[in-house]
């Protein structure tokens, strides 16, 4: 275990200036990327009159020439007073339900397509592949029609069910499982006494963990950022998610920008947090798509 550490530390010692240059470039890029976020965060803490008065912090008597006392949490108070909390909870619920259900459905169907021989398997795979090339926009009108006929308009199920089995996800999991789970392992589990469901949960899913992590995050983000379908499917105000609620903050004649910035911060924070927690899995899931067998 200690042997791989030796070349790494040796490299650290030898590649001195190259390493520093690289770090400097990366740090600069990171700062550039972070500036809009910093601006957003500061803007959300400014009152209406300061919003257009200063680019970053409002000037004042405080340390560094900044008017610290002019920063305020009023925007956030106002935001939640106006029922924004409800939209936030809606979003959390929609996104996490979609992520968990979608991951289960996609991995289970990917597993079936990868490892089981059944009648209609070939056509099923071709159907999945051809669905991938359909642009989602194309499905808006027929999707609405379908939801109308089965009576799911303005329901949570109407928002979530159509997206729990994306063809892309099914195919992604099929590929990952084909690569990462050898047939003999499934046979070994079958002989060890696993039922088919137990094989799926205790052998297949653990072996494709990076992919599961990545897909949870992808589908969470997709639903969190989803702006069009909630507006189409949902009509009741109390069912709207954050993305729609934020857009509604913009008035026709006047927009409270401080409030808008605070709402944006609230909508970005959980996603950023999730990404920080899962980034290792996300990256390994995207790059390898699988684990060693």
């Amino acid at each position: 275990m200690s042997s791989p550490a030796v070349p790494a530390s040796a490299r650290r010692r030898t590649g001195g200036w190259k390493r520093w240059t690289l770090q400097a470039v990366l740090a600069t890029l990171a700062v550039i990327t972070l500036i809009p976020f910093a601006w957003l965060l500061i803007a959300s803490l400014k009152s209406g009159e300061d919003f257009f008065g200063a680019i970053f912090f409002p000037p004042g008597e405080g340390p560094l020439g900044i008017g610290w006392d002019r920063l305020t949490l009023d925007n956030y108070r106002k935001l939640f007073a106006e029922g924004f909390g409800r939209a936030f909870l809606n979003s959390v619920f929609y996104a996490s339900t979609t992520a968990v259900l979608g991951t289960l459905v996609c991995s289970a169907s990917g597993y079936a397509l990868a490892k089981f021989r059944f009648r209609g398997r070939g056509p099923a795979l071709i159907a999945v592949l051809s669905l991938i090339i359909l642009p989602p926009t194309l499905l808006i009108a027929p999707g609405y029609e379908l939801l109308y006929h089965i009576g799911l308009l303005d329901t949570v199920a109407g928002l979530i069910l159509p997206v729990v089995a994306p063809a892309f996800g099914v195919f992604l999991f099929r590929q990952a499982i084909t690569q990462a789970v050898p047939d003999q392992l499934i046979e070994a589990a079958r002989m060890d006494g696993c039922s088919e469901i137990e094989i799926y949960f205790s052998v297949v899913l653990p072996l494709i963990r990076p992919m599961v992590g990545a897909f949870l995050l992808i589908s969470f983000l997709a639903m969190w950022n989803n702006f069009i379908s909630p507006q189409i499917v949902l009509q009741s105000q109390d069912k709207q998610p954050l993305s729609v609620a934020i857009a509604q903050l913009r008035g026709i004649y006047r927009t409270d920008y401080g409030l808008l910035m605070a709402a944006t911060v609230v909508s970005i924070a959980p996603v950023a947090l999730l990404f920080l927690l899962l980034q290792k899995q996300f990256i390994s899931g995207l790059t390898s798509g699988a684990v060693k067998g």
Partner: protein
Amino acid sequence: MAQVTLDRVEKIYKGGVRAVNGISLTIDDGRFVVLVGPSGCGKSTTLRMIAGLEEISSGTISIGDRVVNTVAPKDRDIAMVFQNYALYPHMSVYENMAFGLKLRKTPKAEIERRVRDASAILGLDDYLERKPKALSGGQRQRVAVGRAIVREPACFLFDEPLSNLDAKLRVTMRSELKALHQRLKTTTVYVTHDQEEAMTLGDLVVVMANGDIQQAGTPDEVFRTPVNRFVAGFVGMPPMNFLEGALSRAGEQVLWRESASNPAQIVLPEPLAAHAKARVGQPCVLGIRPGAISIRPDAPDSLSFLVTVAVVEPLGEQTDLRLTTPSGVLLTARVPSVHGHMPKVGETVRVAIDPARVHAFEPGPFGRALDAPVPAEPAAGTPAETAA
């Protein structure tokens, strides 16, 4: 512990490919049986049918007194060791071994006891907390064996378990497996393509080809009295030499000679000659083990050839010689190495054949041995009796 019986078991794949052709085999309780043959001979399919991983097209398989044709693999009371180990990569060595017991709701203390016992037998005590990734090939194979023995099944199945190991480790693991079987005395069915493995491990060696059992017998039987040319050529290293020729008669003796123009001829010894009498005038393939050929400048014509040395391969104690007969057939001879007295490449030497170790076959790749008993039923029979 149980007897395993195969009765006219067939496997026909979709599209009509016959992988196994109605084989019958009785494996007595506690025996170590090796199915051996070239790839595609049906040995792995047979094993997988016993395991329940492959459906049986017709015939019956019984384990103990129970016909298991439709019994799920997990309920057959068997454990299998796979070629690529098939360890669960996300579980530690301990968890890998305990997994099957946990699924069977074995009490925790009992699991602990069985895993500790197995790990002590297999020398895995220091690795129980490790993941398979951190183990060497030999250790992984031991874990796979451990996972099978903790289950204390009625029968072990091994599917080419040593093929992924390097040559040296393979030999070590081979004797470990043999010792393990002598200790546990569990009925074992072992599949390999390596005839040496089959000979060293098996109480009963079952040689398969083209979905049929060619011969089933003790290692000694399949080596000394192969029933056909295929078995003779498959068992033994280096492989047996075959010389095409014909039988003729000289007084009371039966002679084999390569061709009319070649004076080289061999007088068939009794009792082979008695079996060969009926076939005088017909073609016959002579089978000679490399060890039955020796360099003898003074040997009589009736038992010897003049040959040219093509290749010399010293192996230490012994030397393999590739020899060309006047008719251009390549023979292999394994002779003791005598320092300073080995023939050189290009040299012509006289080699003698030990008549007691000559085999004679009907023509064709599966030609029957002339002295083989005429099979009552297709080659299978109930071979376990011969091994008892």
